[in-house]
């Protein structure tokens, strides 16, 4: 081999080795870090895995938010107006968190059916219902438009109470 060819070969081999490492790391990292989304109706049907990080979403149910008076523990229920999911969280809820508003929670589903949230994300959305939830309802055979309207109605009522 001429030196030039040898150099080319080395470059190609080096690039391939690096690309191989990168692909390996990527696949490994992707496998353990993909968070699937579930709505209460899917969780009630038993579709969601237990003790794995997932995302769940829905509307915060009216009157369900209960703060522990001594600590920062809080429990609330999220609903898609078909099924409900009990959520436990410790910490500060986001500014836009309110009953009747859409939220997405990230955390693990315990064996007893309670959702242990590590993160709560509030959605400020004029549609009131996060699009993922609407889609999950549709897939479960419900008409999302009906529930969307219901969510909007509850949202409107809670908002007018605020003012």
């Amino acid at each position: 081999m001429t030196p030039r060819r040898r150099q080319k070969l080395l470059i190609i081999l080096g690039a391939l080795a690096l690309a191989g490492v990168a692909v390996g790391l990527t696949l490994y990292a992707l496998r353990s870090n993909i968070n699937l989304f579930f709505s209460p109706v899917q969780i009630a049907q038993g579709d969601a895995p237990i003790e794995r990080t997932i995302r769940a979403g829905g509307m915060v149910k009216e009157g369900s938010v209960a703060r522990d008076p001594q600590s920062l523990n809080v429990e609330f229920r999220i609903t898609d107006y078909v099924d409900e999911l009990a959520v436990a969280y410790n910490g500060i809820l986001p500014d836009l968190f309110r009953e009747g508003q859409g939220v997405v929670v990230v955390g693990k589903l315990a064996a007893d059916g309670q959702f242990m949230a590590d993160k709560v994300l509030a959605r400020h959305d004029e549609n009131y219902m996060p699009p993922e939830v609407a889609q999950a309802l549709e897939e479960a055979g419900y008409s999302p438009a009906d529930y969307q309207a219901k969510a909007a109605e509850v949202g409107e009522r809670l908002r007018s109470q605020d003012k």
Partner: protein
Amino acid sequence: MLVKMIPELGHFALIIALPMAVVQTLMPLAGAATRRPLWMAYGHPMAVGQFLFIALAYLCLTASYALDDFSVANVANNSNSMLPWYYKLSAVWGNHEGSVLLWSLMLAGWGYAASRFSKSLPRDMLARVQGIMGFISVGFLLFILLTSNPFTRLLPNVPQDGADLNPLLQDIGLIVHPPMLYMGYVGFSVVFAFAIAALLGGRLDAAWTRWARPWTNLAWAFLTVGIALGSWWAYYELGWGGWWFWDPVENASLLPWLTGTALIHSLAVTEKRGSFKSWTVLLAIFTFSLSLMGTFLVRSGVLTSVHAFANDPSRGLFILVLLAITVTLSLGVFALRAPRVSHHASFSWLSRDALLLINNILLVIMTVTILLGTLYPLILDSLGLGKISVGPPYFNALFVPLTVIMCIFMGLGPVARWKRMASGELVGKLWLAGGAALALGVVLPLLYRGEWNLWASLGIVTALWIVLPLVRDVFDKTRHGATRLGGLGKLSLAYWGMVLGHLGIAVTIVGVAVVSNYAVERTVRMAPGASVDVAGYEFTLQELVSRRGANFLADTAVLEVAHTDSGRRFTLRPEKRFYLATGMPMTQVALRPGLFRDLYVAMGEDLDDGSWAMRIQYKPFVRWLWLGGLLMALGGVLAVIDKRYRRTPKASRTAPQEVTS
């Protein structure tokens, strides 16, 4: 009367700018192809005219905001009569339509500057550059006029007052972050235009790289500052003290930065050694395409975040088509023309050429992994395969090791020679620096906290491994001067630019390593009179007060903070604000910044019994993150003003670097 017509005037100015951009695209390109100087001469006046008319349109929109003209839908949706004047002026780009107009204005500005300061270019080259800048401009002007007109009126039912600017955006960050970021994004259009022009003309020599380099460095410097400002803004605005979230929108700005960094280094090889030409051109195409993709992601509404203003699918489709056209056309030109400009220069495996090649490969791998993590959920979603999200652990697991590997080569690069180098010489130059970096990296965390931390040590070793060889290099380079100080002055600005750029990376790495490993966060429940101790500071909630701001009501917590060791005392006043027009609550963080630590207090929620949830954080070295970014950008600017780039063939009055002043 004329005042009432300001929005129509702006709209009209935009409509006039469009045919100018069309002429700027067609005439110079056709002229360059058929060698007609008269046709080519259309380029400059059209670039000037287009810039002036878009600037006029931009001023008209700004005037509508300043004058509270709520008959303009854009103003009514994003402003309010109570909004302070500086937010009214920056609210112009705090929404979809206005930000695209700002984008176009900057594009026309860069196009004008490229045209104005490149008089020494061969005429056909300049014509092609102007034509390509015009082409991009046509795309964006059509986008504004067809899908995102900022001057749409709300007639006849004019609202009494505006809906107000999103409270998250009512901050100094809105004033500085978007313009800087956009200058960076759009600035890469110039090197893109140079690259395509070089392909079309078949001319890609050292002179070409000397023209392209200052523009690339300048755009890169702007983008660096833009990203750093965005991180700084998110840190204090979002109320939980994070400085990088691997949010798709952040990734969208990091992607062109990574390929832009690769491009800067590849251009250096192309200028000095004449190799890597095709690769340089390809990187220029990728960098601008990724800038466009960033715009698509942010502006199309496929992502939900503070950046995604609009949810109009036609807009997303338009940018996607524009992106597809740009990428297809430029890669097509590349495929047809690249072989004509390729050139091979051999180099040994141990040389600066080879190290820069590795740097480029690593940066491209980083880009690809981040691109994959960002687009994967979008692709799955559009194929109907489920809604997933890719979390920060994925990005950290890939980005951190790749960065460390790259930094190992970064220590070698600046001291290595071009073409070939004896391994003994490299070892001789570096053994001391390497040993010192290892020793200090192990000892410093011990001294700092009294306990050893693998990750902090790794970060410090990496940073020192970048800095110490540079110090050694500066030392060696000044050895032969009469005095050391005189020797420092003799080093070129471009060299200092490189030193500062690398130093900036090291500073940022120290910041990341320390703040990620030693930050303390406490979330507590506090009633007036309660105290809590965080990292050697005692925080006491003294009282809760209410106040009224310009357009909000606020609950303010007054906390007295005492440093346990020194006894120094000061007061922090975090707020929970309620914005009247939108009815949105907002957390206003209280910060005590410092070069070596930040204290960070955010109010959580009112817990009914008179106490509040509070998030108190101790953030050591967090300022270094952004300080490093500023150093990198400063390095980029120094490299631009190096006088090497002023020694153009005719050495006349103009120089590219004057754009900055």
